């Protein structure tokens, strides 16, 4: 069953420049994907590709100057884009939760960890404080926080980065959501802690039949923790499919460039790099957005690329997808 579906989502930032002219940055340009019940989907791509923006839109958190000219987001049968704030607040934090990038600055500095976990529950249900404390302790234990009782009394500034990240995961899980969106949940953590935190998250999502979206730069994270993946570039999804299919086929030139730039491949084949810079969102060219950076670009690429099906659930946004041989 489809839990979240995003269809042809466009997000524009409309601002007035110093010369008083209205400027439009086209940050998302037709993003479509779904998250099925019990599935973990990875969103990868370079900075500015629109990964976080997609997540914020799904949570209904976009505010002016961001606007959504076209697109549809359905979560659990509800149209997120048409819901009034009150009803959105009945979804956010309960049925759909988010793990943000900067754990140390995201917790309320003047509330103890325990109080924040209790507040998260009491905002969304008529649970007694004693009951909420019990659930909070249980969930801290689940995310493998040592000595939960002591941590409940800690202030956010007393936590290490890894500990704060675990607390944020506890916050995201304490109301037993259907979907968890983890926006680069491990930036700023060292590698061993990263792996532990992600393992914990994946195990808990699996054990409770939840779904998750993991946003990351790290293809290793996608390979180890996700079922399906979507590769984003300049506000579009250029390739998506099952993780094993995408890694095997790598049909989009950008996907291929990304994979060839991972450390393991560099050791084996020398340094591959994704050349060029992202296109100017204020002044997007027509046709394929990756054209200027693509080694395979032809005359054909000046027209908008079609979505070509490679296999079941595996699609690539490229004129030449069918001609590119698997590596």
């Amino acid at each position, binding site marked *: 069953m489809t839990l979240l579906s995003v269809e042809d989502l466009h997000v524009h930032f409309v601002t007035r420049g110093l010369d008083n002219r209205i400027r439009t940055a086209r940050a998302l340009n037709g993003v479509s994907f779904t998250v099925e019940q019990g599935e973990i989907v990875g969103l990868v791509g370079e900075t500015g590709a629109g990964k976080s923006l997609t997540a914020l839109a799904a*949570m209904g*958190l976009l505010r002016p100057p961001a606007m959504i000219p076209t697109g549809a987001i359905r979560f659990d049968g509800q149209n997120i884009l048409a819901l009034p*704030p009150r009803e*959105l*607040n*009945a*979804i*956010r*934090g*309960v049925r759909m*939760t*988010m793990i*943000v990038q*900067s754990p140390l*600055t*995201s*917790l*309320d*500095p*003047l*509330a103890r960890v325990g109080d924040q976990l209790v*507040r*998260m529950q009491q*905002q*969304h249900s008529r649970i007694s404080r004693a009951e909420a404390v019990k659930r909070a302790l249980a969930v801290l234990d689940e995310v493998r926080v040592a000595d939960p009782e002591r941590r409940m009394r800690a*202030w956010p*500034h*007393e936590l290490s980065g890894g500990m704060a990240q675990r607390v944020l995961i506890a*916050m995201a899980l304490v109301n037993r959501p259907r979907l968890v969106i983890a926006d680069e949940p491990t930036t700023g953590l060292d590698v061993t802690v990263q792996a532990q935190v992600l393992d914990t998250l994946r195990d808990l999502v699996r054990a409770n039949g939840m779904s998750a979206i993991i946003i990351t730069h790290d293809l290793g994270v996608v390979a180890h923790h996700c079922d399906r993946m979507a590769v984003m570039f300049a506000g579009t999804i250029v390739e998506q499919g099952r993780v094993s299919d995408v890694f095997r086929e790598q049909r989009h030139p950008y996907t291929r460039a990304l994979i060839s730039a991972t450390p393991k491949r560099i050791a084996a084949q020398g340094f591959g790099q994704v050349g060029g810079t992202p296109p100017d969102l204020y002044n997007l060219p027509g046709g394929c957005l990756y054209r200027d950076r693509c080694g395979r670009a032809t005359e054909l690429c000046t027209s908008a690329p079609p979505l070509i099906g490679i296999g079941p659930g595996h699609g690539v946004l490229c004129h030449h997808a069918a001609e590119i041989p698997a590596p």
Partner: protein
Amino acid sequence: MLILRFTLRRLLVAAPTVLGVLFITFMLVRIGHQDPVAMLAGPMADRAMLEMIRTQLGLDQPLFTQFAGYLWRLAQGDLGRSWQSNQPVLHEIIAHFPTTLELTLLSVGLGAIIGVPVGLRAAFRPNGWFDQISRVVSLLGFSVPTYWMGLMAIFIFFFLLRLAPAPMGRLSLEVIAPPTITGSLVIDSIAAGNWEALRSALAQLMLPVSCFTLIAAAPVVKQTRAVAIEILGSDYIRYARACGFSPRTVRRIVLRNAVAPVLTFIGTQLTSLLAAASLIEFIFAWGGLGHWGLNAILLGDFAAVQGYVLTLALFSVFVFLVIDLLVLLLEPRGQRR
């Protein structure tokens, strides 16, 4: 225990500051162009008499010897004598301080009570109509010179509209003052059950407090708005919204986090406005510490000027200590040290 240690440490740190203030004030009044001896002796004095007075006052000694003597007497609680009134400076300060404190505390208190909610409301809807209006009004409070505002208030509310009593001190001339207990006429009147004096004292306070409140509220509005806008843009408020917290809860988190910075700012306001009170007092013939201090400066009354500045410095040390203690209790981050 923590509080005691904190207090002691703060006082220890404050000591050199106060000493520096004493030194600078002492030297500044002496290198000024005024010669108090000539003023004291009057136009008929001859050279020998001038020298005699100079020796009597110890002004013939080297500056540093004078300063050492001043410190020595100060340590014994002797702030010297005002040449103008021939009273001990300490007595004059004790007599005048409550008057100024009453005016300043009332104005800063009212300024905070008005300024904080206005600043918050403006921050929650930046550039909305409320924000625009509050910005214009607080700009007035910032930019209109104190004396002009005082004079205009007198002109409009006393002279034209006859709403306020004559700006001639703290009590109408027809009213008998209550016996002095605290030095605040409002409190003393209530204590003595003298309702006529209370009414008169409040009526006299009306105009100076209104002017002073506007001056005090303007920066509080601006600062509160800035603090709240910064908090509203913070990661933890964005996260609170992502958690689906109700707007009320979000506002409560903003409020709680704004308390310490706003409180600290109001503390700095209190100390600087105590000094700024002198102009308002002058215009309304208030006769408080500011009025007295301003006169002392104009007349070159060394001991009185030093006493005035010392009082301001000690008051600042005290206010900052109290504010820091409050913040320490409100903020978990400070307590760890």
